[in-house]
């Protein structure tokens, strides 16, 4: 740890020295006009983006926002987006959700990178430890859709979709180096090279590395066992054939070592046993995309193959997924019709110690067809209607329709409303898992544990969402986006205890089986506001606020004790806001500050509300390169952000500093 502080100090010193050495600003008028055309500028975001004419609650993080985000993991970037709740669990685990139901195994948010789903059908969530930060320079934008996206994206886009879109290879030419490190972020780095492929093609290849030590402490002030190290390499190549067709081929391979401390119920003690686990994560994917734009018809065909493997103590899982999707967008008159078909096959092989899956291997298939018509009713009104039919191995056909209306009374404001239905199909875990989750104490001289079981009768969770929104540009420098929602859920997951039974091995003990069922229902409602104010040409303020209320109930025949939830209803804050300030100072200096407020959470423990302040200072020492120092958690030395499932031991993020160099040739 001391070494890292030295490293940080060295970093700061470097910046200071370099800054002193560049006191004089060259006069731009001395450059020739040709030279002037080569000068890269930092756009001071003079104008807010035009108001988006999208009938949904969408937030787009642009390349410009990403360029100044000094975050070094994807969840830390998502934290900056209004309406997204991110809780750090330990050095390699996060809980990420929008519109509620957050948890380590949160399952109502779909995450896509270049259209490829990176969530696992095992629990419908994302293994964030296998997704180290991409090259932020190579990301074009991150779109976050709050609310159901089932019609376009299919089952599991229940409460939202996160879409990470990388730049075409043409825009990432040349050599780019990123490297850095600090007190918690031990070391991270990356290298990207981009070039041309013949007359009509471009490529980039890249490699990324990151390492975090067990720096964090758990609740008992003991150093946790949660180090994380991963390397990831990949490429992207784009070709253009004629004026109409483009091909993209991309792929990645990764390999990592992850540590965690588990707390496992053990009847032989009896009690809980701590296990320091260290496991491997590996994977690769290859994806090809073909696009053709002919007249008013655009076709896209996408093929992908992916393999992932991870071997934590609780469950070893290997999975191969193949996907083929085709869609066509055509416009004629008032109609813009998008329709497509998709087929996905995913096969897994598991072997568990804490979790057991029966049968241990399984192949699932999902086939879907969707159509969406965007109708321009008149110059100010658009109606969108869509429907998705999806067939999956568990629940056969599911229908996910939506209707959206957009009204643009003038150039400066947009109103929209939507009604949609989405489902979350059963996960592999909900059908087939068994976990010895809790040690409940002694009864009649025998230890008692509860064992959570998946159930073959587990069905899809459903939501019907009612949304309205308003976007406006009340002043040329102010952009405002407000949305409100009311979600009605049916068949939500509940945990139903059954009659206890006695097992003889390894020592005689009592097991209380708890079956996953669908006996909860209810509603959530809330309000989300985001605003951007370009106070001056060099100063921008962003504000985000999200409010959420739960009203969940269990059916009369349910005996759910409300204690087995990893996506407990109380794991999303009722209020959260973030305020960020981006100041563009003379001579290439930038000062960015982020203030977050997250309301208290009630899980098994009570987590008090907190404020968190992060500050970054960045200096662009030449046209394309920068040095920065980022300080996290300036207000408090330690903030416990999220509570993991009972069998995991969490860490408490501490105040941290890291430096970063980004250098482009």
């Amino acid at each position, binding site marked *: 740890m001391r070494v890292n502080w030295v490293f940080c100090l*060295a970093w700061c010193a*470097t910046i200071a*020295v*370099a800054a002193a*050495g*560049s006191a004089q*600003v*060259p*006069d*731009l*008028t001395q*450059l020739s*006009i*040709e030279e*002037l*055309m*080569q*000068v*890269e*500028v*930092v*756009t*001071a975001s*003079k*104008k807010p983006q035009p108001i988006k004419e999208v009938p949904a609650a969408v937030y787009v993080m642009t390349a410009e926002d990403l360029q100044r985000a000094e975050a070094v993991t994807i969840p830390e970037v998502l934290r900056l987006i209004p309406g997204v709740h991110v809780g750090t669990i330990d050095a390699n685990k996060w809980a990420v959700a929008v519109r509620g139901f957050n948890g380590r195994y949160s399952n109502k948010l779909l995450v896509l990178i270049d259209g490829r789903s990176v969530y696992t059908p095992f629990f419908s969530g994302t293994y964030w430890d296998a997704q180290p930060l991409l090259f932020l320079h190579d990301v074009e934008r991150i779109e976050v859709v709050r609310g159901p996206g089932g019609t376009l994206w299919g089952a599991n886009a229940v409460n939202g979709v996160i879409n990470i879109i990388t730049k075409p290879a043409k*825009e990432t030419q040349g050599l780019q180096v990123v490297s850095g490190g600090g007190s918690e972020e031990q070391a991270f780095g990356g290298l990207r090279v981009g070039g041309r492929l013949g007359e009509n093609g471009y490529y980039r290849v890249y490699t990324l590395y990151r390492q975090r030590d067990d720096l964090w402490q758990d609740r008992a002030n003991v150093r946790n066992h949660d180090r994380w190290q991963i390397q990831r390499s990949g490429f992207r190549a784009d070709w253009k054939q004629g004026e109409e067709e483009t091909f993209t081929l991309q792929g990645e391979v990764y390999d990592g070592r992850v540590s965690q401390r588990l707390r496992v119920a053990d009847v032989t003690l009896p009690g809980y046993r701590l296990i320091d686990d260290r496991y491997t994560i590996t994977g690769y994917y290859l994806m090809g995309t073909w696009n053709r734009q002919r007249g008013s018809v655009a076709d896209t065909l996408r093929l992908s193959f992916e393999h992932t493997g991870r071997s934590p103590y609780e469950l070893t899982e290997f999975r191969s997924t193949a996907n083929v999707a085709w869609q066509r967008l055509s416009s004629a008159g008032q109609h813009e019709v998008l329709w497509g078909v998709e087929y996905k096959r995913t096969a897994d092989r598991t072997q568990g110690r804490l979790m057991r899956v029966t049968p241990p291997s399984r192949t699932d298939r999902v086939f879907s067809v969707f159509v969406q018509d965007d109708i321009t009713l008149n110059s100010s009104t658009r109606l969108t209607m869509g429907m998705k039919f999806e067939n999956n191995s568990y629940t056969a056909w599911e229908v996910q329709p939506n209707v959206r209306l957009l009204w643009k009374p003038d150039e400066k404001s947009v109103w929209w409303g939507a009604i949609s239905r989405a489902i979350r199909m059963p996960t592999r875990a909900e059908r087939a898992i068994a976990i010895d989750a809790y040690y409940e104490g002694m009864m009649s001289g025998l230890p008692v544990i509860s064992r959570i079981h998946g159930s073959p009768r587990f069905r899809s969770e459903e939501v019907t969402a009612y949304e309205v929104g308003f976007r406006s540009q009340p002043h*040329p420098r102010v952009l405002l986006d407000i949305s409100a929602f009311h979600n009605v859920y049916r068949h939500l997951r509940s945990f139903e205890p059954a009659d206890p039974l006695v097992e003889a091995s390894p020592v005689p003990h009592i097991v209380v089986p708890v079956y996953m069922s669908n006996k909860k229902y209810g509603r959530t409602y809330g309000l989300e506001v985001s605003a951007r104010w370009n106070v*001056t*040409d*060099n100063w921008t303020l962003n504000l985000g606020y999200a409010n959420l209320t739960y009203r969940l109930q269990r059916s009369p025949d349910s005996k759910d004790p409300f204690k087995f939830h990893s996506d407990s209803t109380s794991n999303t804050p009722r209020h959260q806001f973030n305020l960020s300030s981006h100041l*563009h100072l003379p*001579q*290439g200096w930038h000062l960015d500050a982020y203030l977050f407020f997250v309301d208290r959470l009630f899980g098994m423990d009570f987590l008090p509300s907190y404020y968190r302040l992060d500050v970054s200072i960045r200096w*662009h*020492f*030449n*046209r*394309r*390169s*920068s040095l920065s120092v980022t300080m996290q958690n300036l207000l408090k030395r330690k903030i416990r952000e999220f509570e993991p499932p009972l069998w995991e031991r969490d860490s408490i993020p501490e105040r941290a500093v890291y430096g970063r*160099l980004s*250098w482009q040739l």
Partner: protein
Amino acid sequence: MVAVLLSVACAQVYNETEVKAAFLYHFTSYVEYPASAFASPTSPFVVGILGKSAVFNALQEAVRGKTVKGRQVEVRQVSLGEQLRECHLLFIPEGETGNLPKVLAILGATPVLLVGESERFAAKGGVIGFFMEQNRVRFEVNLDSAKRAQLNISAKLLSLARIVKADRRS
């Protein structure tokens, strides 16, 4: 490694405003005005910035102590009205784009190099419009607008520009 980095730390990143101001200064030397454009051989070269814009300060800074076509340069903040016709170069910032039709009506055939930064500014009647491409400032030129304003633009400037045509008006 740090030493290597320091050695390249000589160049600088600029903000868009500074770069655009420098472009405005450069444009003046590639544009030929009719003799009628200047009242006397000693009258200054007037650059007008419509409304409020950071370009005003950046340009004042950039042209300090410099001359254009052997004339002193005067940078003015101007508002809609007859005074626009006194300018030789008029810059319309993003926020004032809505006033372009009025500006065109006031200027008529007056020899004023009309420069703007909004989307498709040149196609909408301006002479030169800035746009951004890969974080660099680029510009497009509408030759019909230049002709109407009796301005001759040098071939060198045109070779660096993207040439656009005016929007067809029905």
